[in-house]
């Protein structure tokens, strides 16, 4: 059967298969967990029934999404398990290992088949072989070194069901709905926070306008011959007092609102972290599997004990820990555990035990991996450190055991004399430390001669992982969040601008900004974009994009606004993250955020309260939105008569009016306004579809700032706002 016979279209099918893969993964992990929990003994009837149920469900679901190869394998697996339950298939020591191998292989196969990968057929053949072997009752234990799917051998294969090539499935995250609900409500709260803060900012803008007006009245008073009148001054003083009070009140509220915003962001972060949490179970499963493979490869008898399966931590952390755990297990098997005879001679159990324990300690995850082997010979290690020239004899002599053990975590020192295939000569342990350091954690080793070695990893339960562009300046590594990095380029020596993709961009000499001499040669440049503005930052060397963990710089360093935070490198060094907003401000110092550079170099009218008069609702809405974006509080009137009413109630800082309107038309309105004291010099802008010379003359007479021809664009409006007031040179 081909995909075309299925009930779904291609997109649906992709989605369904993704869901199926996630589900299958869960089910099979359950099977694996059950087998691993039983050790090498035969599982109970109950366990076997459960395993059959899981494989049966899998079979049904695979059929629905058209993965017939999976149906076949699941069916065979189910039959074998049924056989084991009934006793018709005998259970031998290696059966557990084989079952785990099959479930692992089936998992890989489902992934491959779901994605339509070519090698899937080979995997299927291999799986069938493995299942048959269990079914035949395991006459001989297969001596496979490592249970990995090998590259396709040159076998002629039966034509397998051909799945249409489907796009690469993305990894799916399965989350409890309540966790999403929490996030949604936090996101909603975020909108409220934004609205509150925006309102405050508008108020501050109005206040700035009021202050400018007060200043202007003081300025005018000073212009008058002789001492200014007391009345004028006291009025100005009164205004200032009011404004000061409003200002301090507004800043206080703004601080409250920012605090609320901080809380909401905290909630969001917490929610997101919870979505990403998973229990230590998966990590333990991985450890059990790794140890199984190691046991088979080395023949060392070792059991795994796990404690703290319910400990929850970030999936990202868990993923990063897979390799360190593998490394530490290899290390324990290769170096820690003594040969059986030696263990018996020492009075220990012949089977060694490795214990992995996970627990939460405050905000930290503590993961301990302990073996009950021979322990680390610090005397030998000391000699080794000296022999390899890493330490001076004096230093080695003075160091205590802890320091000696700590040196083990540095790269290049081996515990055992001979280079060992398995554990990679101590270098592996160094990598463990690097990975853990990158996650912001620490590794400690403790050891008792003859009793065993314990590695403890302490690291944050969750991490704020981000993509960043790393580069070097003056020998130091810096980072910029990758979302703001759009391109890279080359910049000529001493160039102050450069063209990137037909766009002329300012060049910011980062080396100069960071206190280094500027080299007089072509430099690598990173194109940074923030809030719609772009610039090119010159750097010594681009290292490339990396996944980093963002750490706050803390309250003391908060005033250094150039830095947005820091990250810790694999070797434990702090690397600073530059704030793209600050870089943009430095490259565009004369263009404050969100404003167009005004074309006639006149001061723009500061935002305040504006009245828009037009009989077209569309125009009113459009103007409200455009002015609103510039920080104006906008009222509207549909004709001149209504506008006159409104101007009597409130004082407007700007009037924008159409000319042709019912009742009182535009010019009538302006004439009447100009007769009133408070509107004598208020900026007025006319918007019109017909601007003839007669209109222009009349407008000039009435001290109108500008005539703007419809259709109105933001650009035209901003130009009009920036037009000089005709009667005065200084606004």
């Amino acid at each position, binding site marked *: 059967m081909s995909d075309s016979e299925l009930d779904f279209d291609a997109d649906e099918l992709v989605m369904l298969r993704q869901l199926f893969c996630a589900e299958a993964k869960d089910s099979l992990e359950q099977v694996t967990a059950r087998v691993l929990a039983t050790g090498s003994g035969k599982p109970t009837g109950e366990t076997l029934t459960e395993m059959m149920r899981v494989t049966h469900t899998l079979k049904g679901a695979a059929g629905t999404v058209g993965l017939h190869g999976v149906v076949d394998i699941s069916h065979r697996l189910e039959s074998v398990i049924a056989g084991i339950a009934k006793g018709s298939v005998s259970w031998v020591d290696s059966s557990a290992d084989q079952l785990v191998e099959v479930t692992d292989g089936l998992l890989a196969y489902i992934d491959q088949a779901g994605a339509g990968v070519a090698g899937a057929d080979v995997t299927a053949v291999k799986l069938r072989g493995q299942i048959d072997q269990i079914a035949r009752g395991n006459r001989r234990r297969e001596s496979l070194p490592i249970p990995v799917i090998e590259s396709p051998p040159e076998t002629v294969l039966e034509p397998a069901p051909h799945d249409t090539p489907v796009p690469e499935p993305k990894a799916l995250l399965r989350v409890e709905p309540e966790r999403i609900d929490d996030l949604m409500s936090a996101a909603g709260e975020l909108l409220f926070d934004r609205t509150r803060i925006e309102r405050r900012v508008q108020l501050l803008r109005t206040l700035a306008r009021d202050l400018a007006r007060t200043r202007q009245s003081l300025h005018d008073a000073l212009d008058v011959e002789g001492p200014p009148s007391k009345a004028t001054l006291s009025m100005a003083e009164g205004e200032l007092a009011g404004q000061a009070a409003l200002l301090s009140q507004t800043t206080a509220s703004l601080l409250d609102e920012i605090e609320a915003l901080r809380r909401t962001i905290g909630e969001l972060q917490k929610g997101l972290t919870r979505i990403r949490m998973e229990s230590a179970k998966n990590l333990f499963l991985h450890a059990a599997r790794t140890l199984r493979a190691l046991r088979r490869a080395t023949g060392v008898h070792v059991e795994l004990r796990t404690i703290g399966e319910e400990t929850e931590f970030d999936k990202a952390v868990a993923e990063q820990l897979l390799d360190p755990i593998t490394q530490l297990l290899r290390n324990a098997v290769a170096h820690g555990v003594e040969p059986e005879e030696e263990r018996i001679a020492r009075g220990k159990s012949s089977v060694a035990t490795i214990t992995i324990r996970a627990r939460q300690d405050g905000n930290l995850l503590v993961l301990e991996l302990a073996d009950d082997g021979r322990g680390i010979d610090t005397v030998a290690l000391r000699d080794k450190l000296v022999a390899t020239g890493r330490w001076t004899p004096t230093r080695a002599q003075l160091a205590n055991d802890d320091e000696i053990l700590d040196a083990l975590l540095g790269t290049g020192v081996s515990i055992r004399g001979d280079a060992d295939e398995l554990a990679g000569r101590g270098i592996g342990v160094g990598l463990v430390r690097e990975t853990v350091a990158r996650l912001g954690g620490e590794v400690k080793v403790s050891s008792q001669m003859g009793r065993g070695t314990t590695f403890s990893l302490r690291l944050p339960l969750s991490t704020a992982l981000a993509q960043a562009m790393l580069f070097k300046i003056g020998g130091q590594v810096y980072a910029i969040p990758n979302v703001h990095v759009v391109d890279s380029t080359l910049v000529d020596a001493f160039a102050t601008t450069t063209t990137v993709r037909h766009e002329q961009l300012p060049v910011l000499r980062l080396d100069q900004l960071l206190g280094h001499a500027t080299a007089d040669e072509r430099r690598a440049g990173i194109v940074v974009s923030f809030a719609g503005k772009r610039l090119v930052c010159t750097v010594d060397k681009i290292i490339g994009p990396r996944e980093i963990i963002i750490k706050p710089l803390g309250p*003391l360093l908060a005033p250094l606004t150039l830095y947005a935070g820091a990250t810790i490198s694999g070797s434990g060094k702090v690397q600073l993250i530059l704030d793209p907003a600050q870089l943009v401000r430095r490259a565009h110092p004369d263009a404050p955020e969100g404003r167009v550079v005004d074309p006639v170099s006149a001061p723009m009218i500061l935002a305040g309260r504006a009245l828009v008069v037009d009989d077209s609702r569309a125009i009113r809405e459009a103007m409200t939105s455009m002015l609103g974006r510039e920080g104006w509080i906008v009222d509207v009137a549909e004709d001149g008569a209504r506008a006159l009413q409104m101007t009597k109630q409130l004082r407007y800082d700007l009037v924008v009016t159409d000319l042709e309107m019912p009742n009182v038309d535009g010019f009538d309105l302006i004439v009447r306004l100009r007769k009133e004291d408070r509107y004598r010099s208020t900026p007025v802008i006319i918007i019109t579809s017909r601007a003839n010379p007669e209109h222009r003359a009349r407008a000039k007479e009435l001290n109108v700032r500008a005539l703007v021809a419809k259709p109105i664009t933001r650009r035209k409006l901003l130009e009009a706002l920036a037009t000089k007031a005709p009667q005065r040179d200084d606004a």
Partner: protein
Amino acid sequence: MGELRNVIVFTAAGGRYALELRWVREVVSLGFVTGVPTAPTALCGVCNLHGTILPVLDVAALLDQTPGPPARQGDGALVLETEGIVCALRVDQVDHVATLPEGPGGLVDASGRALKLLDPAQLVRRAQEILVAAGTAAEPTEAPRE
């Protein structure tokens, strides 16, 4: 005789100082110290302490004296926690921990020499002032609008 104080006695940038033990969270040997460009000399740099970013300060610069040499990996430092801020003071050498009487002119050590008793809260406040001033100075100037 004045009040007895449990202090840690150390030298830094040529001066001899004492700090009450209750403020000292840890005595550490610094990891790699990353320089922070544009920061004032009072900030020697930042380093990684147990996975968090630790600012390293120069005592002398905070007391408006000639600052010591740049901080390097392996230098000693006292980790202080006060006013909700954790930071490190770079030291040349930690002499000893002692219980010393406070005389009229400050602390006097066993050999009768006077010691300057540092007030960590004041040091941190001074550091904040210096950093705020530096932060403001480093801001790009906006074009005047009026």
